[in-house]
């Protein structure tokens, strides 16, 4: 029980510890060469989209709607790269033991990682959309502030969804390789396999593929896809023309381009309204983190 004046603990709160880990995570993240390259790719793609929109000069094409497409690839990839090794990578390398040897609890470590990863993501997207404002002024001439803000909010939510998924998986498994494989697999799944899976559920329930009129729950399952929810949220928030970047081969009813009310043949229930897309994206953030944390707290490290 010795005392020194220089470094006697004054005590920390849970919030202090989460903030300290988030801060560490942010500094470590922005120094990552991979993430720097990814940001350069985001900036280059943004410039390319506006340059192309100007050259095509097609009034039916919204530059912001166009920008929404590459964002649906690059932002999930960035979130996965930030999050998928966040906990499992430290568990594998052993730096997690260093962290957990100090006062933070396992829950505080995961929350700090989430907060720090989100800061990296938001900082990168802030730079990207600031750049988009500048580039749009220089190319198409006018600055679509409203649509850009709308798509920016939706993009942050999309990044958050994949960050939550990645950190949740990362907390649940013991090596970075496994969590990277699982999260990239999930990304490919929501991009390529979601529609066949939802159609498969319908087939199991009813014994046939969906016809012209489909039940509400089928559309709800389809709209629970984070990529789909992103497109819905973007359009709702003022960025018209953002379509979802996922494979769709028309398995969900014979009238896929019709409105929700027409497809289900009745007035639109609350769970099929557009604001639910925000709930869906937040759900993709929260649910995997809670589930991953439950497993992480019980694990032998």
């Amino acid at each position, binding site marked *: 029980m010795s005392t020194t004046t220089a470094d006697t603990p004054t005590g920390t709160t849970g919030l202090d510890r989460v903030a300290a880990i988030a801060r560490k995570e942010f500094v470590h993240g922005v120094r990552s060469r991979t993430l720097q390259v990814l940001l350069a790719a985001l900036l280059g793609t943004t410039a390319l989209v506006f340059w192309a929109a100007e050259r095509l000069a097609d009034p039916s094409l919204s530059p912001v709607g166009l920008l929404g497409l590459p964002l649906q690839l690059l932002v999930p990839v960035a979130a996965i790269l930030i999050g998928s090794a966040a906990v499992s990578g430290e568990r594998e390398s052993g*730096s997690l033991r260093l962290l957990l040897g100090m*006062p933070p609890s396992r829950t505080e470590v995961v929350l700090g990682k989430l907060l720090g990863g989100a800061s990296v993501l938001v900082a990168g997207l802030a730079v990207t959309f600031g750049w988009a404002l500048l580039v749009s002024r220089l190319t198409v001439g006018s600055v679509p502030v409203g649509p850009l803000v709308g798509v920016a909010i939706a993009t942050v939510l999309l990044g958050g969804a994949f960050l939550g998924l990645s950190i949740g998986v990362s907390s649940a498994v013991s090596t970075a390789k496994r969590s990277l494989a699982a999260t990239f697999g999930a990304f490919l799944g929501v991009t390529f396999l979601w529609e066949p899976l939802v159609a498969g559920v319908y087939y199991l329930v009813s014994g046939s593929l969906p016809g012209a009129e489909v039940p509400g729950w089928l559309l709800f399952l389809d709209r629970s896809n984070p990529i789909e929810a992103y497109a819905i949220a973007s359009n709702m928030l003022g960025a018209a023309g953002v379509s979802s970047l996922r494979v769709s081969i028309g398995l969900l009813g014979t009238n896929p381009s019709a409105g929700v009310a027409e497809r289900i043949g009745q007035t639109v229930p609350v769970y099929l309204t557009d604001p639910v897309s925000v709930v869906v994206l937040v759900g993709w953030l929260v649910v995997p983190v809670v589930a991953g944390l439950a497993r992480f707290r019980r694990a032998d*490290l």
Partner: protein
Amino acid sequence: MAAIQLTDLTKRYGDHLAVDGVDLTIELGEVFGFLGPNGAGKSTTINILLDFIRPTGGTATVLGYDAQREPRAVHERVGVLPEGYSLYDRLTGREHLRLAGRLNGCSVDVETVLDRIGLAPADAERPAGTYSTGMSQRLALGMATVGDPDLLVLDEPTSGLDPHGVSLLKRLVRAEADRGTTVFFSSHVLDHVEAVCDRVGILDTGRLIAVDTINGLREAVSAEMPGVEASGAELPDELTLEALFELYTTGTDASRQQAAVPGGEQ
């Protein structure tokens, strides 16, 4: 209150008993060396103290707190150099010490810590990814001492250190002990612990086979090993872990065999 109290501590992985009913009490202010070959269960025991893993049976208390039920209270009072740790390769030495300060809720006098661990101020500005094993070990030791812990738990602190680093570590352990800190550290090299430890415990295949002072062990070796006496030396200068193992494990094996014989004949 004991610094560390293990009661019938057991950790089972499938059929393998990594820690097998260990009872051990370490008093406050003691420097205790936890000895044993690799795979003896030293790290498993330490990881239970730190709540990195959960025991199958028995209890562990650290500074009076249950290691599994009150891990925060433990971690607020203990400085740790864990087994198989690594640093953040993109953070500098200084940033590591600052992080330790923030997490322990204390301001860190970085220069004093650097001086204590023998890390040059210029090196503290470089990312830890560029550090040698010895430098990493020193920085991790520095982080462990941030917040003036009541107990230092060091898992194989001498591994990867050159002789200079080992002597620096011994000095650091002595200095901490003089300040009243209890030190519990593991090693598979007896030479590294004998100069600094008040007592040592020897772990073999999960079982604690001996707990004694270094002198006590030395006397046991010289009394039990005729080869040592025949050489004319009163006490062996070179007390090796191998000699200790030979002594204690052959002893227990022999008694086990004797106990097994009557049953086997029936």
